[in-house]
């Protein structure tokens, strides 16, 4: 049975500088693989719809005719599965969190990818 066992630790922490950071005035500590928010690149997307089917919270809406790709930031759980399964690597993960907002809404991006024209097939018959 000991008395005042905590005094040693308490005095040492008082002498050191604080371990907390003044977030949001100082930046939050992040690593290169931290999951913050999803970034979409419209110039390489081929509208295959795989990200839409893999999303566990159904946050992505794709409109092929209108060429728009929407994401509901409030539904996205930043799980990284759309980034992992995109075949053309149009989706990447950024390390900063989405900023707080007062109204819920969706973010819309336009798809500017144009499929290159196939070269005309030469007549094979000799």
């Amino acid at each position, binding site marked *: 049975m000991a008395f005042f066992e905590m005094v040693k630790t308490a005095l040492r922490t008082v002498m050191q500088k604080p371990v907390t950071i003044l977030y949001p005035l100082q930046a939050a500590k992040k690593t290169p693989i931290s999951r913050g928010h999803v970034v979409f690149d419209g110039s390489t997307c081929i509208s295959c719809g795989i990200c839409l089917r893999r999303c566990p919270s*159904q946050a992505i*809406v794709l409109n092929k005719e209108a060429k728009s790709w929407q994401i509901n930031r409030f539904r996205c759980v930043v799980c990284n599965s759309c980034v992992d399964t995109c075949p053309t690597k149009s989706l990447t993960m950024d390390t900063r969190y989405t900023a707080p907002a007062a109204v*819920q809404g969706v973010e819309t991006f336009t798809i500017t990818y144009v499929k290159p024209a196939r070269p005309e097939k030469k007549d094979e018959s000799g």
Partner: protein
Amino acid sequence: MIMDTQTTTGIDVGKLIGSVERFRNEGYRLVQIGCTKVGEQYEVNYSFDKDYHFENIRITIAGDTEVPSISGMYWSAFAYENEMHDLFGIQVRGMNIDFKGTFIRTAVRYPFSQPPVTVTKGDKP
């Protein structure tokens, strides 16, 4: 690694109390009581464990069959039986602590015995 296969014994509702008493006398502890809806019938699994040896018995009943409670032998079974009643609507006779439907309060009564609700994509939650 692949672990050992588990066997499940299916028994009649009438023989439930006898089987559970046998487990009690041999010193097994109750692991869980769980319910699954398969088609129109309900399968109720009772799991027991002793020294890492796992045993499972199962009864298959219709929605309105009354199941006898095993809380006479295992006092802690009331938590599982009340949850089974609140989520699936199975009537259990003789629970030692009967919450009468207020253990888990949900917006829809007996939610797990009904088909799931669909939400359209991209709507606000």
